[in-house]
């Protein structure tokens, strides 16, 4: 999952606006309908002027629920990414040598060998099923990637002259790790973080689709797609299509931002 090619500034700005704007809109603007109140009189209505995205099989407004879901999906995805960054990066930076480092890397390898969704489902089954458990489950899956990435940077830069120079002037190991190693590797970490947030969204949806993770009545895109799935057979496409579109829009936006960061790094590197 790497972004290629040049990114246009307008597209990047739009992508950033989507990521930041969507949950804000849901928070600030009044929704046209209550996203949590079922209405037996308006079940399975096709998109119209009152229900822009139609209603689902419980008679709840799909537009309101799609926006409402952003309030849950995006913070969970971002929190999970943040947590895996906070845990993974320091571990990777300091696990460059010694037995503890080796042991950690074997654990990371073991995690990498297992299918992501299996780990997530198992850990959620063990923990429960609230939003924090979903965050933890995704962080457990994503953190090893950051361990690997930052460890690779640390190992390659550890032998560089300027890191040796930093040791020679009396920098502490923590200062060397953050001021000298991470400072020269934060770009790749940032790209990975953006991509992790995108795949976290997919994971949240997958978990909901499988029936674990955040429970109703709060909508998530995954749960909405799962519910709307059964309506597809009747030709009622809107209940699944709109949350899918919203999720894809955000995932695409995150990828565009990742690509823009990568481009910027390349430009800076070439300017040297």
């Amino acid at each position, binding site marked *: 999952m790497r972004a290629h090619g040049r990114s246009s500034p307008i597209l990047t700005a739009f992508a950033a606006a989507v990521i930041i704007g969507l949950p804000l809109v849901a928070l600030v603007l009044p929704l046209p309908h209550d996203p949590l109140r079922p209405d037996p009189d308006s079940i399975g209505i096709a998109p119209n002027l009152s229900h822009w995205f139609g209603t689902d099989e419980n008679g709840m407004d799909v537009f309101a629920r799609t926006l409402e879901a952003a309030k849950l999906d995006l913070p969970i995805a971002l929190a999970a990414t943040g947590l895996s960054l906070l845990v993974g990066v320091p571990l990777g930076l300091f696990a460059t040598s010694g037995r503890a480092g080796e042991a950690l890397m074997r654990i990371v390898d073991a995690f990498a060998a297992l299918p992501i969704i299996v780990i997530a489902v198992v850990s959620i089954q063990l923990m429960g099923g609230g939003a924090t458990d979903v965050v933890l489950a995704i962080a457990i899956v994503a953190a090893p990637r950051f361990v690997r990435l930052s460890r690779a940077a640390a190992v390659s830069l550890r032998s*560089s*002259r*300027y890191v*040796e*120079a*930093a*040791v*020679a*002037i*009396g*920098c*502490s190991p923590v*200062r060397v790790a953050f*001021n*000298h190693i991470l*400072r*020269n590797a934060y770009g790749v970490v940032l790209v990975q973080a953006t991509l992790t947030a995108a795949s976290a969204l997919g994971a949240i949806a997958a978990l909901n689709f499988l029936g674990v993770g955040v429970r109703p009545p709060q909508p998530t895109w995954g749960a909405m797609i799962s519910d709307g799935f059964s309506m597809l057979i009747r030709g009622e496409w809107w209940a699944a299509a709109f949350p899918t579109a919203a999720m894809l829009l955000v995932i695409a936006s995150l990828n565009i931002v990742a690509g823009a960061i990568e481009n910027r790094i390349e430009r800076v590197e070439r*300017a*040297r």
Partner: protein
Amino acid sequence: MALIEIKDLRKAFRTPQGQLVTAVDSVSLSVEAGECVGIIGESGSGKSTLGRLILRLHEADSGSIILDGEDVRALTRQQLRRRRRHWQIVFQEPFASLNPRLTIRQIVEEPLIVARTSGTRADRLRRVTETLEEVGLSADFLERRPANLSGGQQQRVGIARALVTDPTLVVLDEPTASLDLTIRASILRMLAALQVSRGLTYVFISHDIETVRHFCSRVAVMHRGRFVETGTTRQVLSDPQQPYTQALMLAAMPPIPYSPNPAGAVSDGDSQDRTKAGTL
């Protein structure tokens, strides 16, 4: 008392193939304060390793290192970090030794920050500016990054970083080897001037006999991790006793006889130095 007192220092590395290679073998050296001692030898002779052992950037296998009366090998890591401000190093590759993301100000300021010396930011900035001036860089360079500097300027930054905490000892690990000939002479002259004005002690590591000849008062010739010959520079280089030193002298570029040929002169600094070398 000697500033550096090294006894029977030994260091072996293990190659990826598992072979044990002795980089430094039973080296003893004593350097008085204010002296400049040259360590000379071909690449792979262990001279750079020796420089790093003295500052404990590498851990020696055995032997003793006394700097300023302090047993360096007995210091804890934290004690060692505290002392580093007194014992500095300038590296061979100026660009590689500077963090490309940092500005010149940040690079030269960092030793002061980690040494927790002079209090305020303003004090530190003043020290940084003064030191940069001492190595011939104006305040215009403060906010620039290493990539925007020439090789010579980069090495001046490396020297400023080493000097900003007022060290007593500076290990110069081939500080001019990767610079143009023209810049080499001016950097060497500056280093020599700084040694006098600051009363520094230098350990000057080089493979270039001519440089060592007019830079160092004493010299040690290193071959396969051992000192094969030591003495005053004049003694060793004008009348080498050991076959290896003689071979090293022969392998070096013969001094160009002075010829009054203006077209042949590369530049002021360079040609002056050559002349001096010829008459020494």
